[in-house]
């Protein structure tokens, strides 16, 4: 199974969902498949789930998607019980497990040898956590969760390696910085939710 095929399967279906992706291949592929202001990429390993959780709690009517990797999730396993306590119905968390630190030198992660992230999530209190077996299975889980407005935690074991990395690196580069993409997302939220996020600059005069 390839991550790109999974993302390709859902990209046309997510509407105006806000999407937080871990930096690296996931962000490059997702931005290529579904460009726009509703995407934010984070390079703080582990915080994709947390940023998405905060957004999901603040905007309970808005669909949130979190696209994470195994190396990143391994760095914030503490976040799983927190996610389990909240389980916002508008959040779909996805972890693409390729068994390597794909953006950081291709060394093995612990999932390549010992750890099962879905078992860890279940142990943390996320009974919904599930491995999918194909891009079609992935797509139907995402669609079901979006339609029924229920929390989902989806894992996909995907292939990677030098050839795969070379493939996504041939995709176009980001045209805005991370910081600009954060501001774009905040302005997009303001526009689509009818709220103010970015404070008015002071002073008043």
């Amino acid at each position, binding site marked *: 199974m390839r991550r790109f095929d999974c993302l390709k399967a859902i990209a046309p279906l997510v509407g105006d969902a806000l999407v*937080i992706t871990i930096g690296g291949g996931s962000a490059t592929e997702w931005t290529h498949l579904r460009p726009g202001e509703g995407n934010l990429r984070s390079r*703080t390993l*582990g915080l994709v789930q947390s940023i998405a959780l905060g957004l999901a*709690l603040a905007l309970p009517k808005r669909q949130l998607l979190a696209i994470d990797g195994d190396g990143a999730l391994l760095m914030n396993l*503490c976040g799983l019980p*927190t996610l389990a306590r909240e389980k916002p119905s508008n959040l779909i968390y996805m972890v693409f497990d390729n068994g390597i630190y794909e953006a950081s030198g291709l060394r093995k992660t612990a999932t390549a040898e010992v750890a099962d992230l879905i078992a860890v999530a279940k142990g943390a209190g996320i009974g919904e956590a599930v491995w999918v077996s194909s891009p079609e299975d992935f797509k139907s889980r995402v669609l079901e969760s979006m339609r029924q407005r229920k929390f989902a935690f989806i894992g996909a074991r995907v292939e990677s390696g030098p050839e795969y990395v070379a493939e996504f690196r041939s995709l176009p580069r980001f045209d805005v910085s991370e910081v600009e993409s954060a501001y774009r997302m905040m302005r997009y939220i303001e526009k689509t939710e009818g709220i103010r996020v970015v404070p008015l600059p002071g002073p008043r005069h």
Partner: protein
Amino acid sequence: MAGETGPSMILEAMKEAGINFVTSLPDHNLAKLLEFVDKDPDLKHVPLCREEEGIGICAGAYMGGKTTAIIMQNGGFLNSCNALTTTALNFNIPIVLLIYYAGDIGDEGFSTLGSVTEPVLQGLGIRCYVLRKLEEIRATIKGATTLAIDSRRPVAVLLTKDVLGMRR
């Protein structure tokens, strides 16, 4: 000093400052404040397992229109330095950091932690105010929140045993 006066004043000051979303990790000295935060219907309270995730959760909540604070011990602040740097500071996210100051003057224990707290905040470029007097709670928390929002950066308020009603 009464055990509840300071914590209830801190809670009132937070609400008056517009804070409506709080993440936290307990400390013995924060117990009363967290009890009040948890019971307050005007605040969304997300209890954490580690402080770093709280910075991410506050960042997301801010992007969704909330005014956020994290309540933690200074050891937890050290746990959250990468998130503060690469998420909060990097994305211009205001968060009020309400940090219990373990290892403060007059304390027994945690002196190593106490000694690095202010220098690390300074190293991160995070403005920091030490709260020692009940009569300064309101203005300090309100001012720190205004400063965080206006500067679009985290601002720290160090909560001492004196204001938490825990100084023996």
